[in-house]
């Protein structure tokens, strides 16, 4: 788990508005140069399994964003009262409670998707993004910036998820959100769906390509080791 790269000074934030430039950066950085998946290497487990189709990927992204944002908010509000030695257990309980809420909501409103995602919704608890942001950011910052940081990281995670799912669903099954996008004429002309894209291995290759593109555009991000 990567430790904090943020060094946001806490004192200055009193005078700032709700959406000052620093706070806006908390939202936008994780979508680009501090992306949780491609740069911080957090939360891979679920990223790969739910992306064969776009719909579960979007739902997963929303779930993770909600859990990250609110667990950041809650832990940040409690940060001065949590004893340091048991902080992991406190964090896990807060996360698990939020995940249970998300799980029950999904079961109530989109039952078929929740059945498909069942194990992976549970895995949000051990999704390193949530724990990672709690440790790296929420334990040292005020509730509002922590909340924004949570939303930003959730969105950054979601962006990668949606890119992977778009590629995998359109190339692997010829559909997007269940609607066919490859015209029937192409199939009759001999076009075949790419079977590799349906396997989990395809998401590894797509992430590798995203990393490749991102790091070629911004050589600062290349790790030398």
């Amino acid at each position: 788990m990567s430790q904090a790269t943020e060094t946001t000074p806490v004192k200055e934030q009193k005078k700032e508005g709700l959406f000052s430039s620093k706070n806006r950066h908390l939202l936008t950085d994780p979508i680009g140069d501090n992306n949780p998946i491609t740069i911080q290497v957090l939360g891979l487990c679920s990223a790969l399994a739910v992306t064969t189709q776009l719909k579960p990927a979007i739902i997963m992204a929303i779930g993770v964003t909600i859990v990250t944002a609110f667990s950041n908010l809650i832990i940040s509000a409690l940060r001065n009262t949590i004893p340091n030695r048991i902080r992991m257990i406190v964090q896990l309980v807060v996360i698990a409670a939020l995940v249970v809420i998300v799980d029950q909501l999904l079961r109530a409103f989109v039952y078929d998707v929740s059945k498909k995602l069942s194990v992976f919704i549970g895995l949000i608890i051990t999704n390193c993004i949530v724990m990672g942001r709690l440790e790296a950011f929420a334990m040292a910052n005020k509730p509002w910036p922590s909340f924004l940081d949570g939303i930003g990281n959730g969105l950054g995670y979601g962006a990668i998820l949606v890119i992977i799912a778009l590629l995998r669903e359109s190339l692997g099954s010829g559909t997007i959100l269940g609607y066919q996008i490859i015209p029937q004429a192409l199939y009759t002309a001999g076009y075949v769906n790419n079977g590799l894209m349906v396997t989990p291995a395809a998401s590894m290759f797509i992430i590798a390509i995203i990393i490749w593109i991102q790091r070629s555009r911004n050589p600062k991000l290349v790790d030398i080791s």
Partner: protein
Amino acid sequence: MQDLLNIFIKSAFLENMVLAYFIGMCSFMAVSKSVKTAVGLGAAVVFVLGITVPINWLFQNLLLIEGALGWIHPSLATVDLTFLSFIVFIAVIAALVQLVEMVVEKTSPTLYNALGIFLPLITVNCAILAGALFMVQREYNFPESIVYGLGAGIGWAIAIIAMAAIREKLRYSNIPPALRGLGITFILTGLMGIAFMSLMGIKL
């Protein structure tokens, strides 16, 4: 007996946590830089999965599922607490990892030094919680859950040790700079996943 062996082979190879389901990736990516540390973490995961899966089975079947509380009072027989299983499982895992750490420290300092920082890290390894959740989903019985926990752990250990061995050799190869480190590891994992897919044809 044959059933148990089948579950073991299945959980270790056919349904390998890392290479078939891509679970437990975070620590897989982070700790697979050298074979020595990979062996340490792999051993720790086998150990913890082998213990937590059966214990979570006991919690699930003696406390949480519908009718499990009937032995206290007949009126409790309709209580269904399965919605609490996430919280119970993760609490059991966190508590057990802490306990295991203390026991290992007292009884075998050499093993404790070998595992070092990896023991606490395991709490947030998705593979451990996934082991418990898959155990529930597949409705294993108690002996099966023990075998499943051990098999899944051994499968995870094999994968991370193989990955670390490949990455050690990779130092001598000429990879495009932007792909070095993380990028090439992803591609390798994908290729290993495809290799493991060839095992899926085996019916047990």
